[in-house]
């Protein structure tokens, strides 16, 4: 690979190798310093959450990862591998060791162990909180290496700087966001770098490293299937465009063999590495590349005439064999109901699949397709630079630049299907924008330089070298102005604005831990809503260790990690029936719900209610998903019963089924007394902005035991079965008055 710089330096070659190597060394030192600074930037821009809030684990899944890491650091790797968790998915339990991607946990556990063996007493939580920022620095450096392989160090540095502060990536890797993606993006970019490096060098050493990096990616994230499909696609592209070389073979074949062997060592993948359709593309291309290699080999040793004969022979035999193999493959694949694809993969191939068949995947907000503004929010100005980058990659088109093009095209598609895959798009967008910016600078600075030289050497050397002639050369004035504009633009718009934007995004939009919420009051004061932790700590202090807590699955991980109580369902949505059972209970009337919960030994029911403070992602807003998921398994729950004329409402117009279901009752119980302005005992819901439909009702089978300060989390206890069964006779007048007296006397809750 001749870097553009050396082409520019062409005329000065005669000035001596010494000055050039000095310059290179100088450039290397500067590049190194810049890289360190980029790493510092990537790390520090993600610390807003710690500064603004506290060093706390965010969101939902990170709590599970944190709990697993705690277990790992306490019990060691073998117990982790064999961990059967009886505190979740009650009563089924979950084999954690065999169902998690252990990469993140092992990474953080290793860091913790190393740091502690150096006598630096960091807690597991601290290590977990800062894992993501550390790995985003690594990811920036990996992006530098990858882009350097494609378009030289200048583009690499730009790409690394952009990746360090692209909002999309920040959103998943702020301090405390201890999720698989935190390390997986680094692993993804690094694997791609090693693939390109192998492709450029043809070295078996890098090919082996590549397989190891792929192994790390498989350990870390289910998104590894992206790698094992993208690389075969690229190989196929190279073969089809006649770019087959031994380097390509070395880059690909060891990866498939070693990578598949290594991947099957990860318990959660296991035999899926050879059995599921996600991996078939790699094997198919593996066969193709061998056929092609053989063809090239035979072509080399045979005369053209003999080769023609051989081709006809091989093609006829090969076709027959291929047909047989394909027929077997199709038969095998067609025998499985989902055609061998997992639900999530099918969702990627057919974006409407989940909403049609798997409500549980469609119900997750990060599985929704993104909206247009989210592209500008998440990758900002990079969205405009990407096309320029693609053009730059075509001049000239190399093996590596075609890979980058393929990467951006596929990731744009995937990000359009699921908003969480925006994260895969972010590195690609940064690499291409880096290439675009650096190419633009290259062209413009070169123009300036050449024009100057031409003016000096106008009489001396009338014929510049051939390579130079083909390069794009702009008029001096135009290029000077363009450079200035670009710098200015870069300073004020690209770098500055992106940075301001990124800093803003990092500080405001993506740093909220979602377990602690804040709001600004009119006078600029800050109000903190710490209701979740309040509720979980209530649970952990006031309930028995073996009590079971039922809630919608969103809060499962947090309940097990923070309250240490057994839950029925959690965010690892592996058992649809169990979730549907909980959904059914939540959408059933009180008595049926009590029976369902009682049969599962549930003691407490936890609901999240935002109607008082206007917290929109509460259970009432998620409720239709509970109905859908529950109805998917238990057909007596029908979605239209909960909708009035197709509209979801909770006011007086709501259907009786809606107003009598458990979720409504638990959410709005006593909320007609909400002690907040604007309500005046009218039961005003601040999220739905409406007056609730049913007020002043009593609970017969549940009793309220705890409601947090802002009413965001409400915990109910199942009443025990009645001690006596009443007779059929209706209460006479005297006994009614007696019993109402009794109610007054038996009042236990001060809020009744």
């Amino acid at each position: 690979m001749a870097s553009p710089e050396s082409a520019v330096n062409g005329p000065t070659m005669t000035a001596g190798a010494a000055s050039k190597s000095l310059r290179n060394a100088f450039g290397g030192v500067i590049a190194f310093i810049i890289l360190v600074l980029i790493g510092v930037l990537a790390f520090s821009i993600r610390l807003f959450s710690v500064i603004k809030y506290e060093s706390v684990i965010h969101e939902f899944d990170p709590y599970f990862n944190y709990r697993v890491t705690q277990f790992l650091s306490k019990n060691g790797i073998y117990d982790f591998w064999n961990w059967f968790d009886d505190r979740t998915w009650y009563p089924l339990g979950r084999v954690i060791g065999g169902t998690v991607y252990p990469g993140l946990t092992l990474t953080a556990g290793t860091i913790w162990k190393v740091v502690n063996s150096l006598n630096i007493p960091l807690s597991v939580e601290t290590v977990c909180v800062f894992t993501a920022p550390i790995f985003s620095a690594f990811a920036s450096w990996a992006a530098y290496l990858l882009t350097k392989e494609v378009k030289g160090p200048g583009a690499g540095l730009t790409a690394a700087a952009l990746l360090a502060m692209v909002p999309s990536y920040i959103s998943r890797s702020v301090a405390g966001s201890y999720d698989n993606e935190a390390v997986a993006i680094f692993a993804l970019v690094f694997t791609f770098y090693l693939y390109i490096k192998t492709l450029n060098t043809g070295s078996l050493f890098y090919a082996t490293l590549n397989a190891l990096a792929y192994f790390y990616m498989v350990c870390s994230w289910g998104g590894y299937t992206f790698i094992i499909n993208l690389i075969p696609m690229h190989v196929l592209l190279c073969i089809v465009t006649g770019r087959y070389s031994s380097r390509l073979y070395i880059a690909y074949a060891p990866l498939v063999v070693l990578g598949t062997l290594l991947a099957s060592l990860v318990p959660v993948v296991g035999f899926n590495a050879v059995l599921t359709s996600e991996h078939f593309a790699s094997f198919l291309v593996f066969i193709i590349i061998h056929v092609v290699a053989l063809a090239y080999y035979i072509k080399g040793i045979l005369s053209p005439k003999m080769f023609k004969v051989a081709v006809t022979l091989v093609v006829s035999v090969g076709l027959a064999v291929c047909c047989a193999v394909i027929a077997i493959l199709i038969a095998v694949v067609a025998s499985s109901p989902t055609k061998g694809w997992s639900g999530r993969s099918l969702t990627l191939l057919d974006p409407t699949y989940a909403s049609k068949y798997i409500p549980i995947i469609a119900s997750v907000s990060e599985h929704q397709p993104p909206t247009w503004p989210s592209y500008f929010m998440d990758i900002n100005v990079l969205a405009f630079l990407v096309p320029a980058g693609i053009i730059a990659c075509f001049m000239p088109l190399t093996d590596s630049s075609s890979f980058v093009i393929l990467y951006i095209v596929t990731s744009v598609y995937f990000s359009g299907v699921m908003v969480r895959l925006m994260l895969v798009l972010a590195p690609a967008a940064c690499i291409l924008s880096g290439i675009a910016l650096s190419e633009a600078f290259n062209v413009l600075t070169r123009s300036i330089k050449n024009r100057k030289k031409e003016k000096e050497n106008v009489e001396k050397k009338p014929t510049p070298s051939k390579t130079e002639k083909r390069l794009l050369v702009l008029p001096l004035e135009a290029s000077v102005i363009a450079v200035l504009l670009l710098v200015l633009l870069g300073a004020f718009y690209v770098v500055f604005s992106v940075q301001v934007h990124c800093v803003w995004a990092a500080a405001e939009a993506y740093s909220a831990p979602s377990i602690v919420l804040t709001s600004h009051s009119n006078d600029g004061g800050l109000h903190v809503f710490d209701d979740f932790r309040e509720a979980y700590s209530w649970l952990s202090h006031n309930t028995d260790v073996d009590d079971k807590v039922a809630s919608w699955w969103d809060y499962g991980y947090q309940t097990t990690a923070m309250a240490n109580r057994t839950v029925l369902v959690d965010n690892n949505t592996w058992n649809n029936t169990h979730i549907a059972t909980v959904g059914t209970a939540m959408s059933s009337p009180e008595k049926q719900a009590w029976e369902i919960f009682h049969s599962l030994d549930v003691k407490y029911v936890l609901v999240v209610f935002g109607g008082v403070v206007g917290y929109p992602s509460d259970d009432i807003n998620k409720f239709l998903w509970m109905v859908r998921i529950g109805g998917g398994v238990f057909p007596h729950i029908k979605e239209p019963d909960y909708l009035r004329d197709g509209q979801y409402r909770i006011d007086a117009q709501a259907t009786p089924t809606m107003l009598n279901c458990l979720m409504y009752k638990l959410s709005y119980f006593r909320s007609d007394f909400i002690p907040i302005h604007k309500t005046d005992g009218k039961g005003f819901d601040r999220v739905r902005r409406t007056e609730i439909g049913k007020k002043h009702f009593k609970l017969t089978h549940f009793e309220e035991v705890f409601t947090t300060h802002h009413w965001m989390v409400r915990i109910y206890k199942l009443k025990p079965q009645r001690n006596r069964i009443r007779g059929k006779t209706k209460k006479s007048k005297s006994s009614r008055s007696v019993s109402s007296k009794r109610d007054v006397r038996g009042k236990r809750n001060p809020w009744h």
Partner: protein
Amino acid sequence: NEQLAIPQLRQSSYRHETPPTNPSRRCLHLGYFGGKRLHKISWSAPKPSPLTRSAPMAKLAIFFTLTLSLLPFLSHSFSPDTPTDRRILVLLDDFSLKSSHSIFFTSLKSRGFDLDFKLADDPKLSLQRYGQYLYDGLILFAPSVERFGGALDVAAVLDFVDSGHDLIVAADTTASDLIKSVATECGVDFDEDPSAMVIDHQGYAVSDVDGDHTLIAADELIRSDVILGKTKIEAPVLFKGIAHSLNAANTLALKVLSGSPSAYSANPSAKLSSPPSLTGSAISLVSVVQARNNARIMISGSLDLFSNRYMKSSVQKAGSPSKYEKSGNEQFVTEVSKWLFHERGHLKAGNLRHLKVGETGEPAMYRIKDDLEFYVDIFEWSGNSWEPYVADDVQVQFYMMSPYVLKTLSTDKKGLYHTSFKVPDVYGVFQFKVEYQKLGYTSLSLSKQIPVRPFRHNEYERFIPTAFPYYGASFTTIFFFYLFVFFLVIKTRFAGALQMAGFFIFSVVYLYNNRMVGRPPFSIL
């Protein structure tokens, strides 16, 4: 065996809100203050440990001293260790009942009960003082009372039952709404017609005057030795009073004495204008209820059933040749009251334990396919001591949403029940469950949670014979691959040998890992 106390069962979690089953008075009291009230305090603050509280601690200390000083006085009362009632409050319409029903009362006194007679409208009436119940049982022989005196009302009576105490209610034609509503709350519906009585033109008791057939010689008794005693009640039971019915869905209530098929409930002095609402064996004359907390309730439609007159009278059922010198009333009432006051049919179970075969000590978790042994102790209260309960129908469930194992326990006739079984090939959080509900006996419901885990990675079979062809195939492939590499590479370059060594090491490591996983490669294909 003194350790076999009920509090050992898994009921502690109920302590905060509901009083536990049949607790001793002391425990209940402390549970109330120490548990529920403080439970409220701890809403905002973390639950303080009893030793670190200051103000509540002082209160607690006072109660401890109080209860300790009261201990000698309370020691003869009802407790889980001696479940028979001791102190009984008898509420009467007027004190003449005391002599007219003296046989019944004397039999109670002779069995060691401490009877406290009071008028039902006594203004000082109270069941509890300072949150402690003063009585273990209540007999309501006051059918016509419209309103109890003092602090007593329907709710107080029901709370009394709900905290595990026993109750006898006797009604007759004068039964007030108050008495009827107590019965209704317990699951018994008296005939709504206030003038109706049970009439039986076939099964009436023969008497000198041909009356209106409201004095009934009832002999439709429940077939249960535990309720009615082992000696069969030969003579019919005389009954004159009102009918009641039970809800068919009510699993807690039992008809002890039911009407014959020809009985019906109507006003005897009026002409029947419409079919009576209660007829035949739907009519219950005397019922018992065992509440979920094992409190026992007896409801009779006749107060005269308990009277000396009926007990002493001779009886002949219409159409029956046999004439008895003495009615069955005395035996019936005595036996039912023995059951009612927990002198019979009261079981306790505890010491649920399990262990892996060949090990001592209870494991925290089982593995699938483990062999385990299960033990439970069950004793029956004989009135003054705990005797081993012997039955062949006690079962244990190994339960996870549904029973995976259901085994009948064998007993050593010393109260110890035992069985052994293999843990099913399913992992999850299981429960050992003993659910024992037998007619007349206290219902036992014990459970103990135990997780069952799958095999560890190194617990699988190392080599499966059926997979030998696959092992053979992989080793042959490896061997010929080395041969191939050897001839292709070793001749040209020494480095090739190194590479080959590398491959060899890698393969060994891989195979070793596979061995560790325990699943031979491709065996599931």
